[in-house]
């Protein structure tokens, strides 16, 4: 009884972990299947041979490959001959910064708009903001990127590039905000965030228990925070990670951001299967991990989680 709020968390957490693991295996199967079906037997380029004692068959291949991966051996890049995993680790960090950065930045923009709209209904201000977000989300990312670069260069006389190039300039870190901003606003993230947060918050504010809170003169936000803010925010964040990772492929090209996206493109060019597979897997892992975190927060916050 006393631990009603605690016990489920651990239990549910365990379950979520299991699910995540299961899904990651599934992911690896999908990736494997794609290459298995591909013409020209790309699997051989991975140096995948049947594991000893296993029949010569697709699952033999798979087992061998999966086994190697578990030992952290993702093979070597065909193009550079480098082992894939450390390479990915290096660029993965950059992509993660880009993605998470833009998540946070988008939140900083979306939350005030959403909250304001939820609290005060449509006002000229937040309607305009919402429509603006809509339009941004419909602009092709890379074109938007070029636009931003152009504006920065010709209006502000600044050069919004990272990849070490900004080292020569004052407050270089500022420049890294630009790609983050572009990734965050374009590709639909911003508008969807605003909408989701707003809908959820409005739904919650209409709940009975909020009325109770008002009736007893308690601050409404204190009561609406968990269900109306914390949960939706984590939900939308984890839901958006895959989109952002996809967008990163583009944005990293435009802004010369040394991340996975650029590597993925290069790899697709060179049919560098070990690399592109590694990237697909790593990206999926990011997504799953984000999702796991969301579930953890949800479970920790919501006493009913264990009932679900």
């Amino acid at each position, binding site marked *: 009884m006393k631990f*009603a709020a605690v016990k489920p968390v651990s239990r549910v957490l365990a379950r979520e972990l299991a699910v995540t693991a299961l899904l990651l295996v599934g992911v690896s199967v999908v990736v494997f299947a794609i290459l298995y079906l591909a013409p020209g037997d790309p699997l051989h380029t991975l140096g995948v041979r049947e594991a000893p004692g296993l029949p010569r068959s697709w699952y033999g291949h798979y087992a061998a490959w999966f086994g190697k991966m578990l030992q952290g051996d993702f093979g070597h890049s065909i193009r550079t001959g480098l082992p894939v995993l450390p390479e990915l680790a290096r660029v993965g960090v950059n992509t993660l910064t880009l993605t998470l950065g833009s998540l946070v930045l988008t939140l900083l923009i979306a939350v005030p708009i959403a909250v304001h709209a939820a609290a*005060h209904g449509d006002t000229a201000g937040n309607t305009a903001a919402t429509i603006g977000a809509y339009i941004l989300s419909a602009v092709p990312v890379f074109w938007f990127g070029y636009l931003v670069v152009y504006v920065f260069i010709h209006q502000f006389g600044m050069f919004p590039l990272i990849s070490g190039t900004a080292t020569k300039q004052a407050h270089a870190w500022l420049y890294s905000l630009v790609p983050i901003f572009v990734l965050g606003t374009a590709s639909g993230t911003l508008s969807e965030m605003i909408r989701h947060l707003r809908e959820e918050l409005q739904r919650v504010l209409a709940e*009975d*228990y909020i009325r*109770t809170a008002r009736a*007893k003169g*308690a601050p409404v936000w*204190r009561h609406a925070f968990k269900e109306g803010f914390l949960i939706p925010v984590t939900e939308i964040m984890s839901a958006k990670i895959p989109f952002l990772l996809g967008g990163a492929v583009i944005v990293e090209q435009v802004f010369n951001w040394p991340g996975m996206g650029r590597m993925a493109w290069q790899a697709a060019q060179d049919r560098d299967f070990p690399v592109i597979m590694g990237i697909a897997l790593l990206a999926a892992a990011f997504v799953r991990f984000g999702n796991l975190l969301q579930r953890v927060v949800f479970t920790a*916050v919501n*006493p009913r989680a264990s009932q679900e």
Partner: protein
Amino acid sequence: MDAPLLAIEDLRTYFYSRAKRAFIRSVDGVSLHVAPGETLGIVGESGSGKSVTALSAAGLVSDAPGVISGRIELHSNRVRRNLLDGLERYVRIEQRDGRVMAVEKDHRGWRRHAETTMAGVRGKEIAMIFQNPRSALNPYATIGRQLVETIRLHTSCKGEREAKELAIRWLERVRMDSPRLRFDNFPFGMSGGMCQRAMLAMALCAEPSLLIADEPTTGLDATIQSRIVELLAELKAATGTATLLISHDISVIQRLSDRVAVMYGGTVVETGRATQLLAPQAEARHPYTAALLASIPSAETIRRKGNLQAIEGEVLDTIDVPRGCRFYGRCNRVTEGVRERCAGLEPPLAEVAPGHKLRCWLYPA
């Protein structure tokens, strides 16, 4: 009878229905008063505006297009204040032949103003309990936290520990089983009855001067209902808190209230002492009240009539209010003598006996 604790004068609450592009006159000129320590029961079918009256009194009418006018005077610990004071500054209502044509409202100004006036009142002076207690409690916080919060907001004891002790004492007072354990429970684990008890504790722990109980028994199963009713009676005896009790269930009203107001179509159609108004054979009675009484299963109605009668017709749509008596459409006691008055002209709330008023052409003052 000393100065009323709560005096509602000509309260009007209108909502705008986006869907219908029209105004719903949920409360349309209601006047009520509650004396200290007394319980006023408001009874009526759903949609008769009784709940809205309560919400208006507690300043919880939050819908952007909702507008309130009239006076709601709260007179407690020697201060008298009009809870609707100054709100009229934020709205302009356009009427044409008794029909609201347009409303212009500065909602944010209204909201801010209302909040400031209600700040010291809600929870402290006026506490509320609602129907469906399970959804009325915050599912994300333990019972204890919600109680403690109220206590620390509205009572002198601010410390966490003594607040907790007080909370637990209140849980005992509302007959909560094993209060110490319940203290750490989340609402979802508890029965509706338990939740309602918790709600009660939460409402009363601030020792308010007025308790508004909005359909406190609705959404509970019968056995629990009676328990809650008993508990209410008991607590009222103990604390002597004045209560505004809203229910569609006459038996509840009968059990708990000193005075009763019957509402129909947004107005009070009859009001008086519970004893005389609900007495099996009263000499004067509004047809609607009669119909209500006839529709409840109670020993003597069955003995007298042998069967129950449902009220014919639809509940009044309060968008287009008829010129005449609001009940005219469904009234089964219209006589030729009064017909065109009933149809043409709304009857006044006339005093037929001391303390007993009703709104019907059959009983001229």
